[in-house]
């Protein structure tokens, strides 16, 4: 691993990264232009140029500004946050298959949502009808986030007890994930038919749930993510050389792992509490980024942002249009993409080079 051999402002890399970020623009436009409602491109452009349209009652305006734009922004931000969180966790664990989901964040969110959708209804704390209203959905989001947050604190405590080694991070995460999956199985078994369906829709991950109100939360998460990129890129490079080297470079591996695990879990938790768990983006995007730009975290993390955004937005376009007017949950598409990506990666392994960090 030659980190310091290349100067920071490598022209080729900067060009690559900026072209990736530029690619977000056509992808977003595509996402806004295509959907179940057939809109002529000219109408879409007209609506886009007129954020405060003369006549908001026009259907095209509503479709563009209330369905497609929030959804596209949601996909872009969610993809970016998940991808960076994945790259960060892969960096601190030095494990190419680790992700915030390995830390049990998605299981915790699913469990939190299940508590409301299934147990809340079962124990008659909430009427089931209420969950289909926007306020009801907010409660599911809050529960998912609360459980995720508690989970993050718990897992950090576990790590504090056993030391912040890469192995302990993965093991603690997997152990906790098993615990939640036990809880989820239990909940699912006792769920009524319609709550079960509601719940399964939730855990498949879906970007329909993003609306303007939720975009502020997503934006805040994106800012934290960018801050994390800025703060941790260099330290993670040092860590990738081994704990001893990192220490000699003035980076405390324990503290770094604590901070990164906390930040990555929290950003992931916020995002998936809103959308539901969307699998594979946080593993797939950093890998693609690594293939393109190499392992230097100063480049890898920004590239992950671009790749994650593009990947999730394209997945969402496929989910919305493949079978229109039926909408697939975006999780189904990312699952399929992820699986085929990993099989192709596995087939192309040469001396274990591809999967190395």
């Amino acid at each position, binding site marked *: 691993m030659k980190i310091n051999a290349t100067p920071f402002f490598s022209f080729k890399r900067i060009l690559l990264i900026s072209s990736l970020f530029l690619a977000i623009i056509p992808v977003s436009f595509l996402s806004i232009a295509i*959907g*179940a*409602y*057939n809109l002529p491109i000219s109408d879409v452009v007209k609506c886009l140029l007129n954020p405060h349209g003369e006549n908001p*009652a026009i*259907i095209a305006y*509503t*479709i563009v500004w*209330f*369905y497609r734009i929030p959804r596209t922004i949601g996909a872009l931000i969610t993809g970016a946050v998940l991808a960076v969180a994945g790259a960060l966790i892969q960096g601190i664990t030095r494990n190419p298959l680790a992700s915030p989901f390995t830390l049990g964040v998605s299981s915790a969110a699913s469990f939190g949502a299940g508590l409301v959708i299934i147990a809340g*209804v079962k124990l008659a704390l909430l*009427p*089931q*009808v*209420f969950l*289909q*209203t*926007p306020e009801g959905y907010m409660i599911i989001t809050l529960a998912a986030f609360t459980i995720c947050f508690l989970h993050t604190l718990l897992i950090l405590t576990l790590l504090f007890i056993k030391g912040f080694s890469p192995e302990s991070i993965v093991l603690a995460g997997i152990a906790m994930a098993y615990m939640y999956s036990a809880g989820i199985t239990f909940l699912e*078994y*006792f769920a*009524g*038919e*319609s709550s079960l*369906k*509601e719940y399964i*829709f939730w855990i498949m991950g879906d970007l*329909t749930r993003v*609306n303007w109100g939720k975009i502020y939360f997503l934006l805040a998460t994106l800012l934290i993510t960018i801050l994390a990129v800025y703060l941790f890129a260099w330290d993670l490079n040092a860590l990738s050389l081994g704990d001893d080297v990192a220490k000699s470079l003035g980076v405390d591996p324990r503290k770094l792992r604590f901070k990164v695990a906390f930040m990555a879990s929290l950003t992931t938790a916020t995002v998936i509490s809103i959308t539901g768990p969307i699998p594979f983006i946080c593993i797939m995007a950093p890998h693609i980024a690594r293939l393109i730009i190499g392992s230097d975290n100063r480049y890898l993390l920004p590239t992950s942002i671009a790749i994650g955004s593009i990947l999730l937005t394209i997945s969402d376009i496929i989910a*919305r249009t493949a*079978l*229109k*007017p*039926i*909408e697939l*949950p975006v999780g189904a598409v990312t699952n399929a993409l992820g699986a085929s990506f990993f099989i192709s990666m596995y087939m192309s392994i040469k001396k274990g080079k591809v999967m190395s960090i």
Partner: protein
Amino acid sequence: MLKMKLVAITVSMVLIAIIAYFAGYYTSYIPMPVSMPRPQQIGISKFKVVYPITIVDSAGRNVTIEKEPQRVVVVSSTHEMVLLALGIGNRTVGASDTVIQDPIFMALLQKRDIVNIGKFSSPSAEAIISANPDLVIFYASFYKRVYDEVAAKLPPTVKVVYFDLYKISTMFEEIYKLGLIFNKVDKALELISKWSSRFTYIVGKATEIMPSSRVRTFFEGYTELAAAGPGSGWHQILTLAGGTNIFGDIPQPYPKISPESVIERNPDVIIKVTAAFNPCVDNSTKPLENLYNTIISRPGWKSISAVANNRVYVYTTKYLDGPGYVIQLALVAKLLYPNIFKDINIDQWILDWLKDMGLAEPEKVCKLSWVYPSIPSG
């Protein structure tokens, strides 16, 4: 004598099957008056079943019933409602949690020692055996494999029959067969004649509606934005009631559809169903109102003609299974064509059905409406 009875029974069974099957296709059907006088209650049964009898259940199995079953286990509330309507609810010794947790059923069954056999989709064989039944009733085309496995574990003395009771094509025939099994043929025929004549009345009127004036409808299932596509019971109801399903071209029963596509297809009426509201137990229709408001406030839906013309309705399917299916059909027909079906009093039909089930004064128990907002009077 026995032969004659068997002949009479077979002939009437075939007749009922034919009527039920072809009811939807009659076009030149002359409507029957709806407010029929109730059949005279006579003390002595006209039909007495002589056991053993062999019937063919809806899974195509030959089942021989040796004697009148006294201890029954049912797997769903639909089956329980039909048993109640046949006047043999008190023979229930085991039921799924949907029955056990319903206060109205428990009040009607008037006992607390009914064994909970678990969820209808995964009933416990041990719990069923512990209820010591002589007959178990399962669904015929719903979770059949699960029930086969459970049935294989039951001792041979326990008879098992498979009846759906939720499909209009087989429902009346199944009620008749249940009447035979339980020696309640009179009651079964009374139930069948009442609800099948109402069914044919609605369908007969609906078939006269011109294809060009059929109301284009978006029917949303229990989960959010799940369209009732072909293969679902509500698609069938909608079609029989003379409506056009705007998602009738989708090859799936309950797909989640894009809200944009509803705007594009612009339905004249939107109907949403829920099972999570019980007019006999809940305190207010707030849950239905909440759902209604959620639907009309979806972005851009104001431009849909159903929303613009205030033709969005939410109704609960509570207790509207089995023969209650006919009430759902009538309700949807009335929501689509208030003028054509103005002679039908849905509230009265619901009370009638609750009375059939044995609820003494349903109007005092079930005070809330099944529909929000109220049904247009036409």
